[in-house]
């Protein structure tokens, strides 16, 4: 509880983190509450296709006459769930590999780091293109799996070296001398010390998950939800002439701005937090 309070204190004091935090909270609210207030329109109305913003449609309509705002709202849920799941999967994978590798050392370390190296040498985006066909994307979980399967390498490595440096610190040595278990050392001693580090990377993975998922969707490789911003972008770019002067521009700009704001939110929150928790920078 106390740590939560100090966390908010830091957030409030650091303008950047605060700004990012507010953006993310707004997105979270949109995704959680907005989706129940604004229902996803199923009915198509081709007569009102690609309308500019109006009172009844604040962000205009899509290619089938459905409200863009409603799709944006439901899309934000898709995006948040997807990026959140991706971050969790990536984190878990990275922690398992990096953690075991760093803590165990020796042969296990060598083997796990070798696997990590192999993963890191194969380019991730083309592999995601291949994976997205291999594992049929039908829901956020499979999609998140594809996005995280090849992106944990760097983080695993970083976690390993963090753990190695922790290992050398005095209080860890002390715990070890006291005969505490590995689990105790990891969960009681190391994790709390790495909290800000984890949070920072968690947010940054969420950010890059958005870019990667949108990229796959624009290539048409992961067409699982028509409200995901990437799919909206794909449709707007491919079938609506958004940028050639039609009012489809609103349909195009909505996901672009969504992607942008979400990423800025992640970035500001993460980097602000990093700044805030890096004690040397706090005056």
């Amino acid at each position: 509880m106390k740590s939560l309070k100090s966390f908010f204190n830091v957030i409030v004091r650091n303008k950047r983190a605060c700004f990012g935090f507010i953006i993310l909270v707004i997105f979270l609210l949109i995704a959680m509450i907005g989706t129940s207030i604004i229902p996803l329109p199923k009915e198509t109305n081709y007569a009102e296709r690609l309308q500019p913003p109006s009172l009844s449609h604040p962000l205009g309509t899509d290619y089938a006459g459905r409200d863009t705002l409603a799709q944006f709202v439901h899309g934000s849920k898709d995006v948040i769930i997807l990026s959140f799941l991706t971050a969790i999967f990536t984190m878990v994978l990275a922690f398992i590999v990096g953690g075991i590798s760093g803590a165990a050392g020796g042969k296990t370390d060598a083997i796990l780091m070798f696997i990590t190296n192999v993963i890191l040498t194969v380019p991730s985006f083309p592999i995601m293109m291949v994976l997205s066909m291999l594992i049929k994307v039908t829901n956020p979980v499979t999609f998140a799996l594809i996005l995280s399967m090849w992106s944990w390498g760097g983080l695993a490595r970083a976690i390993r070296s963090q753990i190695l440096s922790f290992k050398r610190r005095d209080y860890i040595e002390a715990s070890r001398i006291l005969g505490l278990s590995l689990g105790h050392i990891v969960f009681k001693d190391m994790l709390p010390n790495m909290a800000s580090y984890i949070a920072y990377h968690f947010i940054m993975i969420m950010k890059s998950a958005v870019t990667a998922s949108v990229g796959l969707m624009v290539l048409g490789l992961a067409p699982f939800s028509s409200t995901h911003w990437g799919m909206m972008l794909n449709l707007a770019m491919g079938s609506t002439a958004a940028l050639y002067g039609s009012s489809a521009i609103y349909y195009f700009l909505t996901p672009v701005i969504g992607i942008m704001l979400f990423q800025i939110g992640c970035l500001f929150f993460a980097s602000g937090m990093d700044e805030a928790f890096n004690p040397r920078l706090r005056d």
Partner: protein
Amino acid sequence: MRWIKRLLLVITTVFFATTITFLLIRMMPGDPVENMAISMVHDQGIDYESAYRSAKAMLNYDPDVPILTQYTKYLSGLMKGNLGQSLIYKRDVKQIIGEALPWTLFVLSISLLLSFFIGIFLGMYIAWKRTTILDPILSAYTAIVGSIPEFVIAFLLIVFFSVKLKWFPSRGAYSSSVKPGFNMPYFLDVLNHAVLPITAYVLGGIGRWALNMKANAVSVLGEDYIVSARARGLREKRIITRYVGRNAMLPLVTNLAISFGMIFGGSPLIERLFVYPGVGYYMSQSISSRDYILMQGIFLMITVTVVLANVVAEILYSILDPRIRMEG
């Protein structure tokens, strides 16, 4: 001894990466014979069965051969330095990569260096002038541009500079009317075609470098020796260039080397949009047509360059950072 060990590690890494990609690629649904047969039925009006037989003969690829046999065949080919023949392009994979790579390297090395230098300059400036109005403006700029996916930027560039203003061409690497070779019209044409892709990469890339640089510079600024340098009354400019700049840039130079390894893969999204005949373009083409051999060849090429780039980065780092040099 250390270098031999290193080399062995490099070779095994490449071997395992190749094996994994080989398996993943063959597990993809759909096969090139099927895709080709379907297009033959449509284009030539022949029935499906004979189209399938023809496609099998044309591609010289039989999907029913067990995967292990295919794998050993592929490996024995690799041993002889043979990457195989592309199923769709009917040409040596080495040759295709050899022709695609220069285009990718040309556009991406220029973009990378431009965005690197602009990025570190911006990043350092922001870190330095953290209290002025410039910081939020530049931060916001880099944050906004860096947050829009590169292909959206590319798409916008095409619409404005190619469709609306008609300043630059939107596709290809050069026009068929110029004769390729060492002549001025060709070079100018190539540059003209490269302007939009390069701009798209640079606009998208600056943000990343700037933010990295800023983060590093900020953390360097907090180091004790900077504080003591300030206390010693050294001029701000000197501190920035001499101490902060150099130390903050160090990790980025390694990053740059690794990024150089990464650019060999090109960008499937952007090259596809500009129909730019680079590696990324062939990558996305080979994936959609299930050209296993070409896909495999490109993956191998990228893997090797990434591994080499990592080695180079390590060497660079040990040269630039005296601490490591002393240790090693």
